[in-house]
């Protein structure tokens, strides 16, 4: 396919997550290889978003282990995930509505900024230089995502499709090793979907960023993923390359809603 897929960079073992009586995930295990595009699919309520939330520390599983870049954890902490190079977009857009597009993307650079608040208050050489350096990086992302014309617009005023793009920009700003995308193309028309595909594939191609994405559009999934995990009612029911998944009876049953 594209580039060379490397060794296993993330592995999830027997992760279970429950909210009171609701069991969102039940003993799910899978792995992700470096540089690959890994899709997580499944009917609504299968636990896909919960899985991503576990991966970057928003939810804490009751059991199971996560192994990332050789280090093992019983659960992730959101700050630790971010500093280890995991970035994320959300299903329901978690942008900072009170800030402009540019500022939102700049917040993605926060872990790379090291000046303290006193330096910033005085706008000394170091703080000013740092701000401009990261402004440059943010502008490169803005160019890449073709959103120059709205860089000073408050994100709250943007249409849904553009907000999703800005959110991708914020995730990219962190220069992540692994990018978790939660339905990046939901609610988009064909043109917007093609643009989004183009962006994320470019990221995977040129920067080698590992992608884990949740997506409902089967065409997209079959086209761009290297491997696919299928969840249903919190359990993993299939794991393999797209061709295998397409013809897997359990997967077909799950989507068609066959009782079991």
């Amino acid at each position: 396919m594209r580039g060379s897929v490397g060794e296993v960079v993330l592995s999830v073992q027997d992760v279970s997550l429950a909210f009171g009586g609701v069991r969102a995930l039940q003993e799910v295990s899978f792995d992700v290889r470096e540089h690959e595009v890994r899709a997580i699919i499944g009917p609504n309520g299968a636990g896909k978003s919960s899985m991503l939330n576990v991966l970057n520390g928003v939810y804490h599983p009751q059991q199971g282990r996560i192994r990332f870049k050789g280090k093992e954890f019983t659960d992730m902490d959101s700050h630790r995930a971010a500093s280890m190079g995991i970035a994320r977009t959300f299903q329901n857009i978690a942008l900072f509505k009170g800030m402009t597009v540019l500022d939102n993307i700049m917040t993605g650079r926060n872990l790379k900024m090291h000046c303290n608040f006193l330096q910033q208050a005085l706008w000394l050489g170091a703080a000013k230089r740092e701000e401009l350096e990261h402004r440059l990086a943010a502008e490169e992302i803005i160019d890449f995502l073709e959103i120059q014309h709205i860089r000073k617009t408050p994100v709250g005023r943007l249409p849904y499709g553009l907000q999703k793009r800005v959110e991708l920009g914020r995730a990219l700003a962190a220069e992540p090793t692994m990018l978790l995308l939660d339905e990046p193309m939901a609610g988009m028309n064909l043109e917007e979907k093609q643009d989004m595909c183009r962006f994320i594939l470019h990221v995977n191609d040129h920067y080698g960023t590992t992608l884990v994405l949740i997506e409902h559009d089967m065409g997209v999934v079959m086209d761009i993923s290297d491997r696919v995990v299928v969840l249903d009612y919190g359990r993993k029911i299939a794991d393999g390359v797209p061709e295998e998944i397409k013809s897997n009876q359990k997967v077909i049953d799950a989507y068609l809603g066959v009782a079991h």
Partner: protein
Amino acid sequence: MDFAFLFEVVAGGLLAGVMYSLVALGFVLIYKASGVFNFAQGAMVFFAALTFVSLLERGWNFWLAFLATAVLMVLLGVVIERAVLRPLVNQPPITLFMATIGLTFVLEGLSQLLWGSQPHGLELGIPDVPMEWLSQKWNINISQFDLFAAFVAGLLVAVLAVFFHKTRIGRALRAVADDHQAALAVGIPLQHIWIIVWGVAGFVALVAGMMWGVRNGVQFSLTFVALKALPVLLIGGFESIPGAILGGLIIGATEKLAEVYIGPMVGGGIESWFAYVVALLFLLVRPEGLFGEKHIDRV
């Protein structure tokens, strides 16, 4: 350790707490039904009490004055709904909160403009003296009036609890508190609901105002009673009627105990902040209060 005295202090504190709960109830009603933190509740208590006592002093019959004031509070609810709530529908909570602070100023000014600013005494026929048989038999002094106030509060709470949980209107109120837009979408008449809620809260304010008026006199400082009710809300949760009662009891008892036993050691006057610190410590353990609803942020 003088147990009789301790009992007296605790009982007195509990009963004082009930008085706080009366005020807190008004807050809870409005928050529960419209999501608004109504800072003007204290001013409403003052307005209601002042109107009532002024009518009494002009020779009105007790029940007539009571009825007239109650109606006035409902009318006030109508005006508030039309002039403040309707234009601000769907604004963030802090905007509504600020609007209620503005409302506080308006009500305070209006009350005094209408009725003047001298303090008034208020008598409800139940003397603020210790119950005879308790004080004689066990040397414990508990005010008759306090017990009466507790009884009234209990009655009010029972009625309100039934109202909220068993009636159709009560259900509608809870829906509105959750989500204005959704409630509108299922056909709940938002305006009517709010008028009802603010009217009922106004009535509760009247009752609270009467009780406190007997205790402290009807004067401007009555508006500060609201500040005393806030720690009650912190402990009980902003949305819970039983929480308001329980919170009131806890605050009342601990505050009285601190006042009597700790106060003299640090120079007195700790009532100004003790209730708040208790509430704060409580919140650190339970950030939404005893019965407050947990907010889960879905990402």
